[in-house]
């Protein structure tokens, strides 16, 4: 499902293109950024901060999908924390990047999410983020 139907982010700040799968507390998204992306430099290399946003937007898409299935408006969420995000690889415009997320805790309007971004067989980033979820929807 197109992520644009599930999250409030719009281009150029929408970095996730498609929600590929959802299973229980896990989801997988796909990103394919063009050379013209604001995250890509002259050689097409993506800035490392993009991976953090891909994990956050992937969770937002996952959560938006669950809201949709339950007939609720897609709620908004805000990134409020990051822990141990390790960036171990590079990615370039045109790469097919898959972001996997797993909800590891939910409490009092907050969600703690483990995520990783892969490029082919290589994990380029992984870490834990915390989001605050607004319950009233948009």
């Amino acid at each position, binding site marked *: 499902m197109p992520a644009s139907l599930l999250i*409030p982010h719009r*281009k*150029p700040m929408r970095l996730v293109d498609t929600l590929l799968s959802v299973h229980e507390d896990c989801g997988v998204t796909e990103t394919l950024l063009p050379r013209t992306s604001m995250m890509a430099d002259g*050689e097409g290399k993506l*800035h490392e*901060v993009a991976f953090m946003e891909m994990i956050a937007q992937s969770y937002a898409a996952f959560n938006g999908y669950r809201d949709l299935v339950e007939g609720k408006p897609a709620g908004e969420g805000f990134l409020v924390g990051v822990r141990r995000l390790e960036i171990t690889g590079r990615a370039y415009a045109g790469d097919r990047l898959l972001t996997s997320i797993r909800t590891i805790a939910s409490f009092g309007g907050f969600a703690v999410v483990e995520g990783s971004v892969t490029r082919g067989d290589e994990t380029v980033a992984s870490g834990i983020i915390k989001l605050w979820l607004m319950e009233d929807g948009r």
Partner: protein
Amino acid sequence: MNALLRGIRASAAGDIERTGPETVVRRYRFAPGFIGFLGHFPENPILPAIVQVCAAVSLAEEEGGKAVRLAAVRSAKFLSPIRPGEEVSIRCRRRVDSGEDIYDATLSVAGKTSAVFQLRLAEEETPR
């Protein structure tokens, strides 16, 4: 250099000030048309967390005079939203921990802390 970094550097509202042996501060003002606000969000623009981190990396890079890459976000807390036109002060303190370059960054608006993070930076291996 990517368009986001160019936009961040163009948003600097003053020179880099050294406030300690390993500490620098710079003020920024992100205008409503700043590229980082586009699409985040259409009805409710706020400065994305990744732009805040990117601005700190950029400041460390400019201060150090060499290209760096973000190797890790050890921890980060984003405490309050930053809106278009607000003056943001970014303070970066460099220290070495177990042989690694660590940057403690604090963002504040009108004297109130809006974000704190601890970044690990590494020298960029290929020229940009």
